[in-house]
């Protein structure tokens, strides 16, 4: 039971889990009924799946250069996914793609009427 064997097994586990989460995100993208619901599927499982795959890759390719590069890639995905989702959600709301009756709290319509 050497270190390389343990790290290889951990890397393989990370790759498997990450791919499974990416598949779950794609299934959600296909099956959810609304644009806003699909936003949930595209951001949360996808981001975690990609981060797990990058961690698995870092454990397989065991160099420090790769760790910094994958850290940048993971941070890019992690911090930009909410921004992109916010923009898509706001555009969906403003284009009338959201059924306002299904919303419990609707703060954006008040803000739009106020002109903020």
């Amino acid at each position, binding site marked *: 039971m050497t270190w390389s064997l343990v790290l290889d097994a951990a890397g393989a586990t990370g790759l498997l889990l990450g791919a499974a989460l990416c598949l779950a995100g794609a299934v959600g993208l296909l099956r959810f009924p609304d644009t806003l619901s699909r936003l949930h599927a595209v951001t949360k499982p996808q981001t975690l799946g990609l981060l797990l795959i990058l961690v698995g890759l870092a454990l397989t*390719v065991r160099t420090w250069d790769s760790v910094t590069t994958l850290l940048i890639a993971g941070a890019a995905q992690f911090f930009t996914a909410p921004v992109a989702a916010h923009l898509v959600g706001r555009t969906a709301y403003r*284009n009338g793609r959201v059924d306002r009756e299904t919303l419990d709290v609707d703060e954006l*319509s008040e803000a*739009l009427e106020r002109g903020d």
Partner: protein
Amino acid sequence: MTIAIAISTAMLGLAAGLSLVRLYRGPDSLDRILAVDVMLVIVIAGVALTSAWKGQPTNLPLIMVLALVNFVGGVAITRLLPHDTDATDATDATDATDATDATDETVATDLDHAGDTGDARGPADSRLGAAGPGGPAAPGAEERPS
């Protein structure tokens, strides 16, 4: 490791196929933007799997660049979509029902409004501005000619 990478590749391929179906079906441009986002993340994951298979860190800068391009492309298309007016606007009552059609009608609605207001509302509509101050200008500008 071989079996893990084989199973992961099969799962990613299936995920890419499913998002391709959403890309074809998605009744709105926004759904297609989400599908392209998912497919690009799957491409990043695929490149990571090939790097893990070979054990070489040669393709890692590609992963970093793809992650950044993913964000920029998605945000750019979302910002530049032809903008449908707000459903709360009273003059757009008929257009709000048009918005429930299944086709990609945001372009057609915007062209309709270009005739109504006398303005050619191009992609640089300030309604989609990122900051709040973009909002007050657009409703006022919309109602001035009417």
